[in-house]
């Protein structure tokens, strides 16, 4: 991964009349990384993507891509980008092959025909039919092929695996990984946290239009909270671990599962009198981190 910045937003804000789209969004995406963009419905993910692409104009702030201003140099920027919208709409009477040709014809870069054929085969799409004859999943495959076929420097994907079967989902993740391996950049907005965890280097978490966290996936998982299973020699009383930042998740006799969002010192201090037979660290998924941010039990969560 290079330190070259591909996407940079500066206090980017979009308002729809009185309604907030995004507010003071500052994020940067580096060349060669896969950046995951997470947030619940209505958080502002799609608005951010559309603003970056100049489909929506910012109310305040700015976005630069490849060092170019998204509004002034929109056409030049989009020459280096491909985009898969979250709500993909296609021309019903158009054949998929014609649609793909049309997209290629609107760009300066030549298409690598053999790569397109390879993509179609891997995704499992026959492009000879009209759009209206395809199922939802197959329409999404057309969008995926359109996003990857141009081998663009930056690929912006809004829910790319929506409606795809697990095998094709896996293929899409492999394609994302290949893009990364080639040193190109992917900006991935998704609800599918497992796929984000699988392919993303960093994630940005957006809530109510504000970017509340940007972190490496690994760091986020390790730092946000830990889950420890402690096997005690004697069973502690129910209120033994009423400590700030420590939550008892489950208890089975002498075996207690804790969720700890602070240093372990105080927990260990309280645990010591009951004798510790064994400690096991449990893996925390990105999904659990996400729920911790947005779930109703999160006091800081604005959705609570």
């Amino acid at each position: 991964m290079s330190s070259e910045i591909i996407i940079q937003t500066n206090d980017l804000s979009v308002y729809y009349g009185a309604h907030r789209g995004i507010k003071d969004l500052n994020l940067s995406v580096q060349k060669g990384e896969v950046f995951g963009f997470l947030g619940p419905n209505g958080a502002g993910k799609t608005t951010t993507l559309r603003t970056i692409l100049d489909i929506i104009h910012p109310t305040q702030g700015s976005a630069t891509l490849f060092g170019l201003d998204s509004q002034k140099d929109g056409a030049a920027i989009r020459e280096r980008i491909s985009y898969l919208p979250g709500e993909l709409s296609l021309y019903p009477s158009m054949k998929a092959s014609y649609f793909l040709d049309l997209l290629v014809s609107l760009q300066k870069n030549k298409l690598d025909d053999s790569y397109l054929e390879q993509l179609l085969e891997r995704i499992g799409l026959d492009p000879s039919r009209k759009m209206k004859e395809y199922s939802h999943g197959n329409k999404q495959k057309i969008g995926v092929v359109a996003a990857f076929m141009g081998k663009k420097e930056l690929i912006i994907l809004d829910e790319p695996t929506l409606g795809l079967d697990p095998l094709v989902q896996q293929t899409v993740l492999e394609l994302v990984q290949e893009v990364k391996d080639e040193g190109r950049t992917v900006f991935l907005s998704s609800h599918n946290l497992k796929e984000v965890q699988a392919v993303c280097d960093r994630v940005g978490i957006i809530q109510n239009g504000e970017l509340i966290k940007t972190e490496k996936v690994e760091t986020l998982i390790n730092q946000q909270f830990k889950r420890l299973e402690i096997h005690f020699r004697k069973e502690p009383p129910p209120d033994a671990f009423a400590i700030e930042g420590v939550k008892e998740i489950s208890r089975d006799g002498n075996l207690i599962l804790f969720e700890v969002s602070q240093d372990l010192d105080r927990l260990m201090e309280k645990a010591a009198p009951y004798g510790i037979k064994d400690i096991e660290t449990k893996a925390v998924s990105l999904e659990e981190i996400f729920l911790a941010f947005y779930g109703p039990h999160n006091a800081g969560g604005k959705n609570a």
Partner: protein
Amino acid sequence: MLNLLLHEIRSRWRAILGWGIGLILFGAVYISIFPGLFEQLQSLKDLSVYKLVGMRLGSVEGYMASVILVYISILLCIYCIVASTSTLAGEEDNGTLELIVAMPLSRWQILTAKAIALSVVVLFIMIIASIGNALILAVIKINNPINVTPLGLFTALMSSVPLAFGFIMIGFFLGAILPNRRLSATVLTILFIASFFVENIAGMVKSLESIRYLSLFNYYNTTETIFADGTQSSDILILLGAAVVFFILAVICFQRRNITVGAWPWQRGKITD
């Protein structure tokens, strides 16, 4: 931009054929029944209701002009209303415009390609319709004394093209400022009907004379004089000028538009808290 333009034209080949042939059939019916109807229509020529809808039944040429020219231009304008509002506002409603706007094209290039393409389509429709109607007239003239030449009818029909361009560009402009296609089409239909009736009513009511200049139909000659004198170049220039003005306004508004949002201009991009 050229590829988008060609795609837009290609995607409408059915409309070109369908509307072209449809307008030939329309003209064929009215031209062919005319010789038998002429004497009966003479008794109705002074009825205001006919004048209101632009029909002049006093002469063969008047009938040809008011029926063929007026109604073919009305049908053509209906196509322009549907096509211009569905091209921009309709594509935004359907979500397909998002894909096009995400391509490496400037907004003005997208709008220009679409506007030129639709103008070319309308031109093709009218070339087909005008040639067809002129040929039908040539056949009818063999047995009937009609003082209109096929070339005169062809030229007169083609003079409706600048009028159509005017409505196309107003359609693009409305599509660029109004929230959705339905509203754009409704407003344009109201403007079209108002424009048509203002021109005809103003011909009957002196006090309305001044507002007829606001009607695009005022610059489209549907009297029998068109067959002898042709279309005034000033009228063509005014219609083309109106088309250019509305096209420029459409480009300005489209440049500023937030695609996919579907909001009124004053609802877009204001921070209120």
